[in-house]
């Protein structure tokens, strides 16, 4: 889909290799596994925990021109929802083509209802979403 997924932790690339080799859950992994042992990239995105030297669970979407469009950061003990990450990614692709529209929270894919902000919508979002 014209996107590169990179997973990042503060482990080295050698540990990534060992983990990929040993953990059967990772058998199908194709994405690049990024090593950030200095925490430099983790700090750039605000997910570096100075107390532990680990990265919090963060997901970030960057456009081809280098703009940060989405971020989600969870504490250690809460997983992220991949469907929601993909929904945001698809919405970004859609909005890159239709910059004057907005994707409401229930938007899932091309063809779903979008909003077009303007004077007619002031106080009429309910009607715009449900007509």
């Amino acid at each position, binding site marked *: *889909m*014209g*996107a*590169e*997924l*990179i*997973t*990042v*932790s*503060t*482990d*080295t*690339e*050698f*540990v*990534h*290799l*060992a*983990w*990929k080799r040993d*953990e059967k859950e*990772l058998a199908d*992994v*194709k*994405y*690049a*596994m*990024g*090593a950030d042992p200095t925490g*430099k*990239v*983790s*700090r*750039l*995105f*605000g997910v570096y925990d100075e107390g*532990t030297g*680990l*990265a*919090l*669970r*963060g*997901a*970030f*979407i*960057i*456009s*081809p*021109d*280098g*703009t*940060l*469009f*989405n*971020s989600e950061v969870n504490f250690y003990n809460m*997983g*992220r929802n991949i469907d929601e*990450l993909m929904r945001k*990614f698809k919405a970004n*692709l859609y909005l890159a083509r239709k910059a004057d529209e907005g994707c409401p929270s229930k938007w899932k894919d091309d063809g779903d209802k979008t909003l077009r902000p303007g004077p007619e919508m002031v106080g009429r979002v309910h009607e715009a979403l449900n007509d």
Partner: protein
Amino acid sequence: MSDEITTVKIGHKVPDFELTVYEPENHDFGKRSLADLKKAGKWTILFFYPADFTFV
């Protein structure tokens, strides 16, 4: 701490960064930089997690 890093904000340009990566498909090590990904016209999705050998 001489080179302090500012956290990038939503809607702002991300400064270039580079990561050494393990590439399972080639079973080799490599590099990924935001500059290269931009040049290739690609979106970049970064997925941080605390540590290998734990659940992600």
